[in-house]
């Protein structure tokens, strides 16, 4: 949809992502939502509509999680809608909050992404994760998500000559940047040898080629810039949003997700600028090969060139097309429902020039890309959000 250029992220907040078995959903949500409201210079009673991205149901709160976690913050008597779209749940919460402000249903809308993945048994977590594929055609037959991207990696290496060293370099970059991000799951860098010494998870992908299972919450407040005059930072305009389901009737070859290209094209068209005008990208690097694929599908390089793009340093914060300066999902962590919102928290801070040693110099435009679920070689959902300051 075309974006009303005055609708903005006026406040952003998030918890540190990580393994926090002693924190509950409420504690995570209260921290992130409070921070986002204070950042916006607004209060709980200003919120007229809430969208919550929440995915796995690993914590016993299978229904009404939004109402429960927001009740004691004083956010009640308003529409609260929970959105589930696997790992893109948070992105869609942002899109819906944006649309609610755009069409006048709310002056101030809150998008929250939340997930707690520690605390449940390893088996419950694994069963729940495989729910992101077709329950009967894939999950019941033994698919695993690392395996999906293990297959993609093998195909990409076969077709383009992408090397395991290049795939490993994605993880090394992610961890190096995460070590500069105080809210990242991992606070230490790793070398290629350490990545390659980690245990095999889904051949050829090893544990450190995979994002960790994290707990966390991220929140953004969306309104017209004029509604948040006491905000602590400049408003970050939402210029274009697009979401697509997979092109399920064209099986594809696992080296590319054309849905990414199309969704990014739609969001950029709404924004009125092209991919070449985007200063930084947060993309869905759930597994190291994925970042390479997304760079190609976004048009940052030619098909098959994602590994070389990385080796050239183009995707570092000071490079030609910075990708995942936050540390991405591999370094920052991946609480499924929270990740799509956390991408926009990162873009907001980057565009406000507040990202410290990870800062992309002079960034004025950003693009967030998130995929959710996967079936028979296609992402189930691709969401792209384009912002500018």
């Amino acid at each position, binding site marked *: 949809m075309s974006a009303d250029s005055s609708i903005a992220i006026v406040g952003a907040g998030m918890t540190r992502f990580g393994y926090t078995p002693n924190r509950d959903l409420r504690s995570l949500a209260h921290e992130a939502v409070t921070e986002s409201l204070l950042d916006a210079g607004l209060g709980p009673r200003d919120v007229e509509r809430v969208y919550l991205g929440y995915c796995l149901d690993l914590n016993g709160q299978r229904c009404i999680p939004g109402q429960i976690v927001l009740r004691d913050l004083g956010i009640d008597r308003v529409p609260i809608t929970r959105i589930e779209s696997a790992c893109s749940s948070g992105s869609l919460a942002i899109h819906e909050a944006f649309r609610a402000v755009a069409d006048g249903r709310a002056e101030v809308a809150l998008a929250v992404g939340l997930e707690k993945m520690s605390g449940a048994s390893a088996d419950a977590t*694994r*069963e729940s994760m495989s729910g992101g594929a077709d329950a*009967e055609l894939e999950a019941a*037959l*033994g698919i695993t998500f*690392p*395996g999906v991207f293990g297959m993609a990696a093998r195909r990409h290496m076969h077709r383009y000559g992408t090397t395991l060293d290049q795939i490993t370099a994605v993880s090394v970059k992610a961890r190096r940047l995460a070590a500069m991000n105080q809210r990242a799951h991992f606070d230490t860098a790793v070398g290629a040898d350490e990545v390659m010494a980690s245990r095999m*998870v889904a051949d050829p992908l090893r544990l450190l080629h995979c994002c960790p299972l994290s707990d966390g919450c991220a929140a953004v407040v969306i309104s017209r810039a004029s509604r948040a005059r006491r905000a602590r930072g400049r408003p970050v305009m939402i210029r274009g949003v697009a979401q697509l389901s997979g092109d399920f*009737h064209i099986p594809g070859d696992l080296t590319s997700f054309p849905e990414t290209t199309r969704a990014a094209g739609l969001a950029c068209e709404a924004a009125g600028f092209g991919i070449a005008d985007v200063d930084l990208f947060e993309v869905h690097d759930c597994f190291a090969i994925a970042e390479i694929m997304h760079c190609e599908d976004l048009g940052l390089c030619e098909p098959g060139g994602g590994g070389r793009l990385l080796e050239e340093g183009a995707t570092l914060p000071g490079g030609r097309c910075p990708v995942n300066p936050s540390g991405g999902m591999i370094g920052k962590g991946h609480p499924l429902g929270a990740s799509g919102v956390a991408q926009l928290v990162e873009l907001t801070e980057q565009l406000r020039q507040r990202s410290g040693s990870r800062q992309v110099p002079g960034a004025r435009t950003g693009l967030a890309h998130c995929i959710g679920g996967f079936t*028979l070689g296609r992402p189930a959902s691709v969401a792209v959000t384009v912002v500018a300051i």
Partner: protein
Amino acid sequence: MRAPSGFRPERLNRPDWYVERGGEWRLRATRCTGCGWLTFPAAKVCPRCWPTPPLEETVLPDSGTLLSWSTATIAPLRFRPPYAFGYADLTPTVRLFGQIEHDGDEGALALDMRIDLVLGVVSHDEKGEPVWAYKFAPTKGGAG
């Protein structure tokens, strides 16, 4: 797919997905009588010609091409890792996910190799009873 020893049709993952003719097990699909579109599992309508014309019953080919594969070393408890799995294209538009039987030799697996559908145990239910389903196996003499 020939029934191997110990095969129990009532223990198939979805018995209604399979049909047996003269000892040969096949996967049931539907074909659009208008455009020929093949759908598995069997469907009620064609996604291209919806809502008419009617679909006819057919079966899937029992071999295909391995798009890619990986190995699960971590999986939910009902599975018994490690096991190999992959995507195989049976027709240009019908892709299946399946575990791969390779006699312990992953070196026998290659991208784009021909595979046959076979029947095998894919998981065990909460009582420890085996669940059977289609799997892939390299076509004898069909590597590459």
